[in-house]
């Protein structure tokens, strides 16, 4: 049975790493209309008829850092479990700290990401289109507006992060769940015996 704990934690760590990559590569919010598109994530990309420009959005580094820390704690949990098992110790209590830290961190990353994505989508929607400010000499400001571009939250990163968070959460509470199930089975066996 401890092997299944370790597999679950390892799978959770893998999912967290996958979501790190996806969050880094894919946008959180997209808006596009004829000839134009804006994608905002860690990488911000704006394409217009006059070209494509790319930059970074630093606040999106926060979920990356949180996910990296979550992956670190999950992997440390796997490693420590192996060591403890070699020493012949039970691992229920010893590993709970690392696993729960991984769960906290991945939940924090998911919550932060959802809020930022919602705020960005809301911020882009006020002109009912895609709007980009640019400086024009003599003007207070200029604004390029492309109607018909609805900002939407891009779901794949959100889905993968949700699964990763759920798996870290599952890995952190699984030993207790398993113990409870075993105790219930034992009780049922005694009752029937």
């Amino acid at each position: 049975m401890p092997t299944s704990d370790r597999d679950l934690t390892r799978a959770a760590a893998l999912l967290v790493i996958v979501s790190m990559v996806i969050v880094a590569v894919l946008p959180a919010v997209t808006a596009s209309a004829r000839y134009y598109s804006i994608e905002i994530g860690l990488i911000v990309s704006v394409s217009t008829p006059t070209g494509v420009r790319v930059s970074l959005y630093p606040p999106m580094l926060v979920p990356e850092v949180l996910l990296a820390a979550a992956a670190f704690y999950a992997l440390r949990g796997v490693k420590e479990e192996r060591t403890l098992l070699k020493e012949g110790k039970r691992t229920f209590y010893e590993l709970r700290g690392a696993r729960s830290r991984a769960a906290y961190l991945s939940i924090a990353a998911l919550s932060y990401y959802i809020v930022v994505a919602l705020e960005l989508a809301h911020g882009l929607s006020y002109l009912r289109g895609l709007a980009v400010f640019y400086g024009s000499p003599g003007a207070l400001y200029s604004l390029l507006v492309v109607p018909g571009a609805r900002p939407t939250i891009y779901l794949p990163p959100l889905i993968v992060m949700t699964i990763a968070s759920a798996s870290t959460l599952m890995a952190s509470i699984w030993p207790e769940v398993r113990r409870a199930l075993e105790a219930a089975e034992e009780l049922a066996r005694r009752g029937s015996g």
Partner: protein
Amino acid sequence: MDGGLNFFYAALVIVVAVLGGLVAVKFLPPRLSGLVPPPFYTNVTNITGVGDRLLLSLNITQCHVRPESATVLIELNGRAIEEASLSEVSCGSNNLTMGLSPYLVGKFAIVVVNLSLEGGRGYVLSYFLRYIYAAESFKIVNISLVNGTPVAYVSYTTPFRAEVSLSDVVLINFNRSSTVFGFSCNSTRNAFVGPGTGYLALPLACSYENLDVLSPGDVYQVRGLINVTYLTPYGNYSEGVGSLAYQR
């Protein structure tokens, strides 16, 4: 705490992360401005009132995408005062004529230029702060006695038809520091003037007259308030114009 997952801590983590996300977006919104090569640059190079019309020169340069049509809106204190459209605009200089509202004369107004891009590729909104100048002046130039009645002569330049009256007019002998006419010299009637430039004679009724201090060769100071009501298609608009002049 035994190191296991605590739901109170999990809730706390979510709250902190949500607040952190809100703060991050509030103070570090994504900067898209430098990323977009503008379709073109717009500038309002000249905006002048000529008569009761407002002439506006719109300069469009560096056209990566051609502009198709333009709508210009003039706003004062967040309220649209004037609007005009051009069905065809070109890259370069474009002239636009619109009505001149008296509310705009001598004020800083926001000029909003909306240029649509060819092929339905969206539009560009540009905001400018511009002073609206229009030749407009009212001035008391002279007061003289006509058949024993004081008459004030007013020079004017107005872009609109206007109704003019005078109040609180004072004529002072500057050499003797003595009031000739004054305290409450008001015009006995209102005068109507058309758009353009001219002179106007308005008879005065004064509460105080001291003709003894009138002497040829002395310098006289003329002060007064000119009450102007512009009569325009936008409605009537009144304002008081102070006037100070010297006459011999």
